[in-house]
């Protein structure tokens, strides 16, 4: 009925077997980190234009269709747009060029510019993290994180547990989506339709689902944890790894390319 999975792809993994899928997860994590740093350093449209070229390239190489990403991001984009409109209307400080003004609301060139940059920054961050998850399986993600942060273990930081929390958080998004889907479907079939009525009615119905969704989401997480325990999972303690991680020269080359590209985007 809803097939929400089509509209929210955050946290999904889609195996196309591309070069990016086969890259070492650690390198992918480092690259993502580089992107995150870059997104804060870059502050003008030319810079983001250069970034965009790289994102397009990644998109093509990953063989994940753009249409899929766009449809799967519509809720996110709608939300972002909503925030940005506020950002523009309530732009603080003195602007030099007002296009429109009323009471405390205004539209100014500065406001538009800041909101534009902010929007690009958020989209950039969203895109790279989504792509990381779309191209990296859960095991690789977990193992990669554990290996990268392993040195911190000497500082007595509970790395395994932190990684587990992170992974469960990621896994929780699809579980959460499934729960919404399940409850909406169950209620529709039994006489409370989710596919009819105006936007407000629908929103109100979904709102009333929130508590049950969290409860059943946690119940499911609990079932999963029990199953993991019966398979001797003790929060990652004493775990060894089946999959070898091997960074190939081409992986390093990609890292170098990304670094160089970001520096160019930053400095221009």
């Amino acid at each position, binding site marked *: 009925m809803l097939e929400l999975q089509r509209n929210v792809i955050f946290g999904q993994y889609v195996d196309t077997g591309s070069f990016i899928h086969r890259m070492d997860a650690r390198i992918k994590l480092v690259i993502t980190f580089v992107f995150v740093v870059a997104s804060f350093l870059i502050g003008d449209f030319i810079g983001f234009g250069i970034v965009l070229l790289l994102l397009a390239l990644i998109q093509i190489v990953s063989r994940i269709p753009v249409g899929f990403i766009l449809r799967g991001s519509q809720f996110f984009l709608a939300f972002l747009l909503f925030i940005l409109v506020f950002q523009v209307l309530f732009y603080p400080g003195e602007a030099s060029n007002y296009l429109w003004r009323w009471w405390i609301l205004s539209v100014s060139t500065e406001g538009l510019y800041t909101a534009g940059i902010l929007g690009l920054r958020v989209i950039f961050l969203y895109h790279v993290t989504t792509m990381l998850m779309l191209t990296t399986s859960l095991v690789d993600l977990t193992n990669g994180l554990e290996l990268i942060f392993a040195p911190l273990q000497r500082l007595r930081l509970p790395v395994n547990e932190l990684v587990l929390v992170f992974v469960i958080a990621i896994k929780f998004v699809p579980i959460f989506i499934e729960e919404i889907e399940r409850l909406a479907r169950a209620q529709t079939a039994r006489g409370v339709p989710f596919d009819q009525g105006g936007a407000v009615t629908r929103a109100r119905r979904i709102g009333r689902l929130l508590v049950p969704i969290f409860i059943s989401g946690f119940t499911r997480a609990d079932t999963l944890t029990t199953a993991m325990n019966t*398979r001797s999972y003790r929060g990652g303690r004493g775990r060894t790894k089946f999959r070898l991680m091997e960074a190939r020269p081409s992986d390093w080359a990609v890292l170098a390319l990304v670094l160089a590209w970001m520096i160019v985007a930053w400095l221009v």
Partner: protein
Amino acid sequence: MIEIEGVSFSYRTGEEDAVPALSELDLRVEPGRFVAIIGHNGSGKSTLVKLLTAIQYPTGGTIRIDGVPVDEENQWEVRRKVSVVFQDPDDQLVMNRVEDDVAFGPENLGLPREEIAQRVESSLGALGLREIRGRLIEDLSSGQKQRVAIAGALAMRPRFLILDEPTSLLPVPVAMRLVATIRDLNRRENMGVLHVTHSMHEASLFDRVVVMEAGRKILDGTPAEVFRHVERLRKVGLDVPLAASLAYRLRARGIHLEGDILDETDLRAALSAVRSGPQA
């Protein structure tokens, strides 16, 4: 060896209320045995499974597995000795790719990589999953998912494999192939099997059948011994395999059928003896 002595268990549902699920249960299962457990809905089968895998602990009596008492202190040791597979594979598969999920248990045991690789390889082979080892679990059929779950349990090299209605979501031919595979593992690895089922025919394929009613064990023996109690089983909400029931009816009509009749082949053999009887 599984030794269950005088075990009782109640679920606490409120401050005062408790639902009794098992009472005074005694059961011993020697290593390498192939045992089916049947019982009406709510008779305590899944509760027994939870107690054997240290998900819950008895409120009375003791359980020992290879001499190790099942309690909070020994839970991790117990879980190395018993592996469990539940009815719904979606509730127990953790990773998103077949071989990663099979490796999940051995990884948790902290085994060296070579050992894990070897166990994954042999478990995949035993369940006929080599070809689909790289597939995403969400793309598999329910029968395949259940096989992955069993492969994951097997890779732990448990002394006992406990299966809670693993076949109830599968059509009979698929279920029969699964049971045949489990039988094969049981023989080759000398791994004990406890298998919960609602199919009387399936139960008749095991060496021993344990019958539960309202938290107690009421019958225990070979399928031939147990399924002789036609009336008794029906009274507690169960049944006997169709062939056994037919034999019971035909005998009641005064037709003399030789031997134990549990499945269609037995029935045909007995009938063929009847037909050729007069001439012989």
